[in-house]
């Protein structure tokens, strides 16, 4: 990677790609151990979707002066631009479900915004991602409603998981900084206000079933790292080792 902070478009692509890569890893953790065989198969398929999308997004960096191989296989954890909600493994199925709704949902809105801008690669490649994401949305919506309707501990854990993920994910989605404004001014993405509104249109009713009022949740930008478009911290090393493919390093053929 370049030594300097990435240009606004590159930061945006890295943010989307790294979040998809980490989300795929977190989904893959539950291929075994999810509530049913069918659920595990769906988790596996969603993990594959995220990794495929990440690969397509990383490839977009090639014309921005990056070596995609280097970006995918050599960066340390503290150079990842992923959403903070994915830094640690999901503790339980409530975490998984909340992430599908909150993180994957935010990603879908960010991609919709990107596909509607004037970056040609996003306009041509992202719509297929969004079509695949529709099944993630249905999966998250059904499981979220199911846990919320169950009440008791299931609902309490779901609410806790979603509330823990929302502030940092909203900050990731709505950075509100000059770098993002450059993208807006250049016609690359929607304004922060439009992104927030789309996010609320998509998620408010579902989150309300867990007692959460999305309009009341503020982005948490404490310790903001403008270069990585996220709060402090980084994904756990175990996840980054898998993202980079460290165990297979000796098998790489140049």
């Amino acid at each position, binding site marked *: 990677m370049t030594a300097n902070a990435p240009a606004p478009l590159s930061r945006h692509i890295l943010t989307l790609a790294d979040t998809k890569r980490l989300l795929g890893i977190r989904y893959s953790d539950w291929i075994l151990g999810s*509530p*049913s*065989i*069918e*659920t595990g*198969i*769906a988790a*596996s*398929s*969603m993990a594959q979707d995220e990794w495929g999308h990440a690969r397509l997004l990383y490839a977009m960096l090639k014309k921005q002066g990056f070596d995609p191989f280097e970006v995918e296989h050599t960066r340390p954890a503290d150079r990842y631009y992923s959403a903070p909600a994915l830094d640690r493994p999901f503790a339980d199925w409530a975490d998984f479900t909340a992430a599908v709704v909150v993180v994957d949902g935010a990603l879908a809105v960010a991609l919709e915004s990107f596909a509607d801008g004037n970056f040609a690669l996003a306009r041509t490649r992202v719509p297929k991602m969004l079509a695949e994401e529709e*099944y993630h949305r*249905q*999966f998250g*919506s*059904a*499981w979220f409603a*199911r846990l919320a309707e169950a009440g008791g501990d299931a609902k309490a854990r779901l609410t806790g998981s979603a509330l823990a993920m929302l502030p940092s994910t909203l900050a990731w989605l709505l950075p509100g900084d000059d770098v993002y404004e450059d993208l807006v001014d250049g016609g690359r993405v929607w304004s922060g206000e439009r992104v927030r509104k789309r996010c609320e249109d998509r998620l408010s009713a579902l989150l309300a079933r867990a007692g959460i009022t999305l309009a009341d949740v503020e982005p948490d930008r404490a310790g903001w790292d403008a270069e990585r478009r996220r709060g402090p911290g980084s994904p756990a090393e175990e996840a980054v080792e898998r993202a980079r493919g460290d165990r297979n390093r000796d098998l790489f053929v140049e």
Partner: protein
Amino acid sequence: MTPPLGESVYEVFARKSRGEPLRHIGYVDAPGVELARVYAWKTYDEENWFEMCVVPRGAVIPVNRPEGPWARNLPGEGDER
């Protein structure tokens, strides 16, 4: 026996092209229609399907073999799944 997640069985039908008839390709266990749709699409994704549908197993009514596996779905034959 009631499945632990309150699931029902959904039969999965699909076709690869518009002119082809729907054919039975398998089944999924799901706690409702929404997840049945997702599970079917994600489980049987080996083909580029033109169309896929799910049908609750309890909605399949036998016509000529009342003693067959769908007998339980005949009116008055008890529990429908």
